């Protein structure tokens, strides 16, 4: 018995060490590989430059539009994903009759399990042609618009919004379910309607859980590469809805293969920028969780 305990302890220790080693080595490596370009290209020129022409005779490595695209794209996806996600969670946890909830919830979980390449494929085959039709309608009179064939920021935002839904819905549902029944009963007892109870009592009480879901959704949207690489067009442009755009993730994915020299170094810097963003998201998450614990 004693021996078993000791062995188990060491097995756990080894597993934990693997994870910790991975985190530290990845962080170290990203900084090691990502910082040289900041020096050779120049911090301002790299981070705030707007022209991306890495293979030109006189190359420029401005990734500002790429950073902006990731921020705008993620924010817009959340703007669509959060209301839908939270309301769906309310539906599952509070409104839907039990049999219906029993269908909706597994469906949402299935949504989370679909590989991102499938989202990309459907986006390319269904969403892009639709977007192209919309683009032709909207810009029918424009003489300056650069037609993208539907592969644009808007397509990417829609795909990202759908991809963040399961994260938001699942976490929000469980945090709504965790609101004590006594609070709900009290609210109903003083004469509040069911909808009033949901919006004035339950959602505020589940706030920190919902925020956690949102932040995790941000992380998912920010880190997604495969799906949006297929629908976003991939030319580096200012992030307007009907522009072909490139995200931080897709930038690395699409150009790593044939890059060399400074171009490659800059791609590592792009990775580092993404890494820093994700770190910020995680710190935010840790803070939220702590706050949630204090409240509870």
């Amino acid at each position: 018995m004693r021996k078993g305990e000791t062995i188990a302890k060491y097995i756990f220790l080894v597993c934990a060490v693997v994870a910790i080693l991975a985190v530290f080595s990845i962080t170290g490596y990203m900084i090691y590989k990502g910082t040289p370009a900041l020096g050779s290209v120049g911090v301002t020129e790299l981070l705030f430059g707007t022209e991306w022409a890495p293979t030109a005779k006189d190359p420029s490595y401005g990734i500002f539009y790429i950073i902006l695209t990731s921020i705008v794209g993620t924010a817009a996806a959340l703007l669509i994903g959060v209301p839908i996600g939270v309301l769906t969670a309310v539906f599952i946890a509070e409104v839907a009759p039990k049999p219906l909830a029993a269908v909706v919830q597994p469906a949402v979980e299935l949504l989370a399990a679909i590989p991102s390449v499938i989202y990309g494929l459907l986006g390319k085959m269904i969403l892009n042609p639709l977007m192209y039709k919309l683009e032709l309608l909207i810009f029918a009179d424009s003489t300056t618009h650069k037609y993208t064939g539907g592969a644009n920021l808007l397509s990417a935002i829609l795909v990202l919004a759908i991809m963040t839904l399961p994260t938001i819905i699942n976490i929000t549902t469980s945090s709504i379910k965790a609101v004590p029944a006594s609070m709900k009963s009290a609210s109903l007892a003083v004469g509040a309607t069911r909808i009033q109870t949901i919006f004035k009592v339950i959602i505020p009480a589940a706030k920190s859980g919902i925020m956690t879901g949102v932040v995790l959704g941000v992380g998912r949207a920010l880190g997604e590469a495969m799906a949006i690489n297929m629908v976003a067009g991939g030319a580096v442009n200012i992030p307007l809805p009907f522009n072909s755009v490139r995200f931080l993730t897709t930038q690395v994915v699409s150009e790593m293969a044939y890059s060399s020299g400074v171009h490659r170094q800059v791609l590592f810097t792009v990775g580092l920028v993404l890494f820093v963003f994700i770190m910020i998201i995680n710190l935010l998450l840790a803070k939220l969780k702590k706050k949630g614990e204090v409240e509870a």
Partner: protein
Amino acid sequence: MKNRIKKLLTIAAACGLTVAMMGCGDTSTDSNADQKNSQAESQATDDNSSDANITGKVTMAGSTSMEKLCGALQETFMAKYPGITVTAEFTGSGAGLESLAAGSVDIGNASRALKDEEKANGSVENIVAIDGIAVVVDTANTVTDLTTEQLANIYTGTITNWSEVGGADQNIVVVGREAGSGTRGAFEELLEIEDACAYAQELDSTGGVLASVAATPGAIGYVSLDVVDSTVTAVSLNGVAATEENIIAGNYVLSRPFVMATMGEISQQSEAVQKFFEFIQSDEGKEVIKAVGLIIPE
């Protein structure tokens, strides 16, 4: 108690399995490599028992566009002749030919024909392969021919509607490859529109370009000649269709030779270098060249 031990065992087994799998990954590649080697060795002994005994070095430098070709040739050649080491640097066509002239490498790689002044110092142009690029549009497009000027104008954004080049009143969606792609480099270089292109879509694979052009009405894209299929239409340029024959005959604009230049004729080179060229011209070598999507010169 029994349960606990069971759990413990499961965990241990899982850990063990992971390690074993990781190990497996390694060993399988190892054994693959071994297999390849032994295959190559047996082949070598079949072909010519002395092949494996030739030792030497082949150094080359030059065109970045030829990286894929050189990599493939290096791999298969060195498997067949384990005694010969082939090293390649990708410094650009001009730099490669300079290294050749300076005598620091055996072969200077260039993805263009040699200039007269480069030939003047004794460099000999050995064309090993030809790279062809097809311009493709969606199958519903009525435009079947473009001039090089029209094509350049489409890609730089001067022409934005198919009606300007004799097609329907339809917007042009300009599809291309990502920065760093060899196909993009060659396309822009041959049309002399380097870094002047206004792309609507920059995709990171040939397949992506094909799929996008096939699915988008009014799209135009460029891909390696060998991958063109029935989902898209290849347009002719200046009235010349994108076919292997036209490219070999030198009539089709979007093609370029891949040259492995040597100082003096091949017969004057070291035994290792001669073997390398012999390999390139063998059926096995031709297979390698075709496998990376290139055309065999006559």
